[in-house]
């Protein structure tokens, strides 16, 4: 409630932002997801440029996705041709994206030309950033093949089945080699097993570690496969590819239900391919997940947001996505770009300011800002004669995390509130709160998005914690400066605790990790002064973990009071 109110109040400040926003959206590339996004955005009344790397619009994934894709694609192509809002540019690709939400300056390469173009939002879609490779390319002619190859050999009717398949008596599948569940591979795999059963006489076995059938129509396909006589074997963690004296290929694994090691020899072994990201030169500065796909692994970004406001990811560039999920992405990306460019996106950032006179142009803040909201801008002091560039924060991209403020070695960045609720995040205010600490108090710097809510919740449900605990709200624990920690120790407090979001769930992406590093360094400094490391603590707490919060602060109190 409170947050909603604050946000509504803040919205008054951000309206007007849209007036200087460019009302064009750049969508790349023209995969099915890209085309769908373009059409969706056009429906909302914005102009779109659709970039395609190849000479004409296409989709290389047709083999793996539903059979309907070819038709879907053709109908999309027709619609796009007719749509007046959509302008297709090909072959072209993005080199880098400068600027901030509403005013991106995109460097585009078309043929041999390189030029800059202004866009309000950018949607990165589809598979030109993803490609599929058979995992076992070097097992030529051994009877191992990828799903794509099987699909081609199988065709879609009994008459199209190639002799290679017709000869086989036993066919085994491993849907997904990498262990992570892939809905796309599961979907196509199930489809192929059914086709095999219908159009040939072979035995079909499927080795699965975990089968998830939560996408549209999957459950039905799975049942059909069972009815047709496909045998599913649930194995434990790893399988091995084996061969016998006759050169037959096989698979060995531990069956979970039989609790026994089993071996199965087959004529053809179908192994799901791996999806690999294909990000070449990346001028997006938007981060990747652990597998190298677009979008950092962070819950706050799901489904389509990136660390830069106004850049969205859709479909396969986010990893191995099936159609159903892609469709959700498409709608989200379209709506997000629309909200952004028409001023409905309530953005509560931009309350952080650089004091130009103090800036030493060390570029630390530019490197640190998780949202790419800082750039060099001409010095704003009119008295200054010579042209000099200093760091400048772009409010439309900034999320008020305060990371830059904590890192600036010249102390040139601080919160400068337009409005009351953010008052408390300024250096002056935080230091004031610290000065009020008494000798026995335990100051706990709480992230406003997680630990602070947990603390509030604790009060609501009557969880008791010591009155010695003094909660200091910060926008993110990445905002807590070393000097704040030391000033607290100057007040002779027994200890200091930082409480922020859990890993990969930090509202400001890496604020918690930065805070962790800072605590490590501060402990070293404290050790030199004879202050034990147990007196400076850091914990990671979700907004709903009231019990955990109370437990952690009680433990901390105990630890540092003895």
């Amino acid at each position, binding site marked *: 409630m409170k947050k909603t109110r604050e946000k509504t109040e803040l919205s008054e400040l951000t309206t007007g932002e849209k007036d200087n926003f460019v009302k064009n959206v750049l969508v790349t590339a023209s995969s099915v997801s890209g085309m769908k996004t373009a059409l969706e955005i056009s429906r909302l009344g914005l102009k779109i440029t659709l970039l395609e790397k190849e000479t004409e619009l296409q989709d290389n994934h047709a083999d793996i996705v539903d059979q309907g894709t070819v038709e879907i694609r053709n109908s999309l192509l027709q619609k796009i041709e007719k749509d007046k809002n959509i302008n297709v540019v090909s072959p072209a690709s993005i080199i880098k994206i400068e600027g901030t939400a509403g005013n991106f300056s995109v460097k585009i390469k078309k043929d041999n030309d390189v030029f800059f173009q202004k866009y309000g939002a950018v949607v990165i879609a589809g598979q030109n950033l993803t490609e599929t490779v058979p995992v076992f390319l070097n097992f030529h002619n051994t009877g191992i093949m990828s799903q794509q190859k099987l699909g081609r050999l199988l065709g879609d009717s009994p008459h199209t089945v190639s002799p290679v398949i017709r000869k086989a008596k036993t066919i085994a599948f491993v849907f997904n080699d990498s262990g992570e569940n892939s809905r796309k591979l599961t979907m196509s795999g199930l489809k192929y097993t059914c086709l095999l059963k219908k159009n040939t006489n072979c035995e079909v076995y499927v080795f699965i570690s975990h089968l998830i059938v939560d996408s549209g129509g999957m459950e039905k396909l799975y049942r059909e496969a069972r009815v047709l006589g496909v045998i599913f074997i649930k194995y434990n963690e790893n399988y091995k590819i084996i061969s016998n004296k006759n050169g037959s290929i096989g698979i060995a694994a531990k069956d979970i239900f039989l609790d026994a090691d089993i071996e199965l020899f087959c004529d053809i072994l179908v192994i799901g391919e791996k999806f690999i990201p294909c990000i070449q030169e990346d001028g997006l500065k938007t981060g990747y997940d652990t597998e190298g796909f677009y979008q950092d692994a962070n819950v706050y970004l799901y489904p389509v947001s990136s660390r830069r406001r106004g850049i969205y990811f859709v479909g396969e560039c986010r990893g191995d996505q099936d159609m159903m999920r892609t469709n959700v992405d498409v709608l989200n990306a379209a709506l997000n770009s629309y909200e952004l460019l028409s001023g409905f996106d309530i953005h509560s950032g931009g309350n952080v300011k650089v004091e130009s006179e103090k800036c030493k142009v060390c570029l*630390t803040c530019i*490197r640190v800002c998780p949202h790419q909201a800082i750039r060099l801008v001409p010095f704003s002091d009119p008295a200054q004669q010579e042209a000099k560039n200093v760091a400048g924060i772009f409010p439309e991209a900034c999320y008020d995390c305060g990371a830059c403020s904590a890192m600036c*070695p*010249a102390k040139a960045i601080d919160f400068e509130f337009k409005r009351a609720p953010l008052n408390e995040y300024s250096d002056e205010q935080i230091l004031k709160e610290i000065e009020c600490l008494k000798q026995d108090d335990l100051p706990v710097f709480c992230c406003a998005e997680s630990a602070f809510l947990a603390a509030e919740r604790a009060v609501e449900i009557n969880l008791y914690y010591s009155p010695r605990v003094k909660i200091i709200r910060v926008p993110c624990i990445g905002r807590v*400066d070393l000097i704040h920690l030391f000033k607290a120790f100057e007040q002779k407090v027994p200890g200091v605790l930082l409480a922020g979001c859990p890993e990969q769930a930090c509202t400001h992406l890496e604020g918690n990790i930065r805070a962790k590093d800072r605590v490590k360094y501060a402990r070293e400094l404290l050790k*030199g002064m004879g202050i034990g490391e147990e007196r400076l603590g850091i914990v990671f707490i979700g907004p709903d973990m009231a019990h955990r919060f109370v437990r952690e602060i009680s433990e901390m109190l105990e630890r540092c009071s003895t």
Partner: protein
Amino acid sequence: MIVAERKPFEEIWNMISHYNRILVLGCGTCVTICWAGGEKEVGILASQLKIAGEKNNELIITESVPERQCEIEMIQELKDKEGNIDAILSMGCGAGVQTVAGIFTDIPVFPALNTTFLGMPEAEGLWVEMCSACGDCYLAYTGGICPVTRCGKGLLNGPCGGTRKGGKCEIDPEKDCAWVLIYRRLEKLSMLDLMEQYREPKNYRAVKRPGIIRATAR
């Protein structure tokens, strides 16, 4: 730029603990940029001193950060303003400490930093050494990569023959072999003939210690 690192607190405390009125003096140029002696670091050190000296009632810590510590005029101005102080803890590089000591002649000036090298930031918080200020620059012959500094052995006619797999240095497998970098760069510039030229032993005393440069009016 000049890169420096803060000394451990114990060492600083040993130098300064028997003084009462201490000025912690930062520098707003190189050492601010390398996170060693700017306004923020001055604040942290001052706070540390206050905590460590909490039993000393007479302890007064003041803080100041001139734009550049290695400028006589700037330090003179500071001296005219400063009240009574017993000692100065300088967070400038070695040049800064000595400039300050030359002006505050009546009180001791202590270094709080170790001045380490001339370098550049490779990423956030990561500085690497680039130049040893040898006074006789070779970069024209080495594709803009300094062998004096970045070759583990400082070879002028490299590589040494011990280069590891993947172009790493024999002395430190973590570091790139400077001569591999030089070769690759010259190759790209089609200037590989430079690799074949023999370089005479270098005059390491091109600048006699202490170095002085007297520039004429321009």
